[in-house]
């Protein structure tokens, strides 16, 4: 599964980032506590959160996540968007809740 499929299925707005098709996703971390994200040692990771600060992008960068999805219809802070562009990390947003996003992404993963 790639980010492009997730974007289409969930109807996400793309705020930053390069190739969505090239971003292969095999694991999802749905978490708002950044230290708990740092524990995750998976490749091809998507971070799903409703936190909107630049710390989300920092954390994604440290664990080498292939993308960040901001949920609950929240708008990430401008600094977060800028940092995502600078670090070349795809940043998406959806009006779905984290729960709803997980259910839909899970279905895509299990296809």
């Amino acid at each position, binding site marked *: 599964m790639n980010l492009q499929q997730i974007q289409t299925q969930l109807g996400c707005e793309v705020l930053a980032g390069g190739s969505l098709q090239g971003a292969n996703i095999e694991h999802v971390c749905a978490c*708002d*506590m*950044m*230290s*708990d994200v*740092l*524990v995750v040692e998976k490749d091809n990771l998507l971070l799903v*959160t409703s*936190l909107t*600060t*630049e*710390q*989300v992008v*920092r*954390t994604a*960068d*440290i*664990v*080498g996540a292939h993308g960040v999805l901001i949920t609950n219809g929240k708008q990430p802070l401008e600094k977060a968007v800028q940092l995502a562009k600078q670090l070349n990390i795809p940043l998406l947003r959806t009006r779905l809740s984290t729960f709803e996003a997980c259910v839909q992404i899970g279905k895509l993963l299990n296809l």
Partner: protein
Amino acid sequence: MTNFSLDSSPSVVLELTLRLKIRDVMTTQLITAEKKDSLRHIQQLMKVNRITGVPIVEGKRLVGLISVDDIIQALDGGFIEEACEGRMSRQLIVLEDDMPLSLGISYFEKYHFGRFPVLNKDSELVGIVSSRDILTGLLVEMNKEMEQLEEKLSPQKEVGTTIYSREFSLHKFDFEHAGTASGTIKMELKEKGLDPKTLRRVAVASYEMEMNLIVHSLGGTLKVTHMPRQTVLEARDVGPGIEDLEKALTEGWSTANDWIRSLGFGAGMGLPNIKRVSDDFHIESEVGKGTLVRSVIRHPELGGEV
């Protein structure tokens, strides 16, 4: 006899003589005698213990002193077998144990005695101090200072030269800049060619240290030292200190308030995360003083242990 002059001493030594107390340098293993003991007995004590003065006591109270000069006179005058009571000096110059060392030194200059008995606040004999004790005490202390200085100058000299070192100042609740220090460290170590897996561990540790300093401390510094075989991270703050280190190292335990949690921090994973990614982990903390966290991450592909 050694002569001291505080006037001509370098300022470091001067500072030490003000900081150290008499009790820090005095000999506490006392060789004493009683009034009824013979001068011959005291001469033996001096010979066996290689000392030049013996305090005469009644219990813990100092009542007199026999010096090597008194013994020579006794041998000369033929009264070496007498009890010391009649021959001991009773007008004694003494020092107190919590006087600064500088005062002790000035006493040696002033009175030209070889030693001074040391009394505590209750006028009990607790030690004796000679000029030799003072010299030894000063040398030991200066050695410590030098070691600390060396440690500061080259914290990990045994594992090679520092390739890159940098220190960041961090401020309490400065969420505005949170993550920039560890972001910089990650970027610059990547340029230095650190492999991605090790880089990730360094990034996790430095990020958690940075967030800890911002969320929990009153402010401090984050220092990175990158060497050929390892990277060392040090977070040092000025307080408030951790009350229960064991708890602080427990996953899920946190003192963070709801506001900090709402920012995505304070889930109680910070220190456990740092420990998890470190090859060597060290923490020390004192309430009211501050906390030091040190993480050593070895570079496996260059011969370090995994």
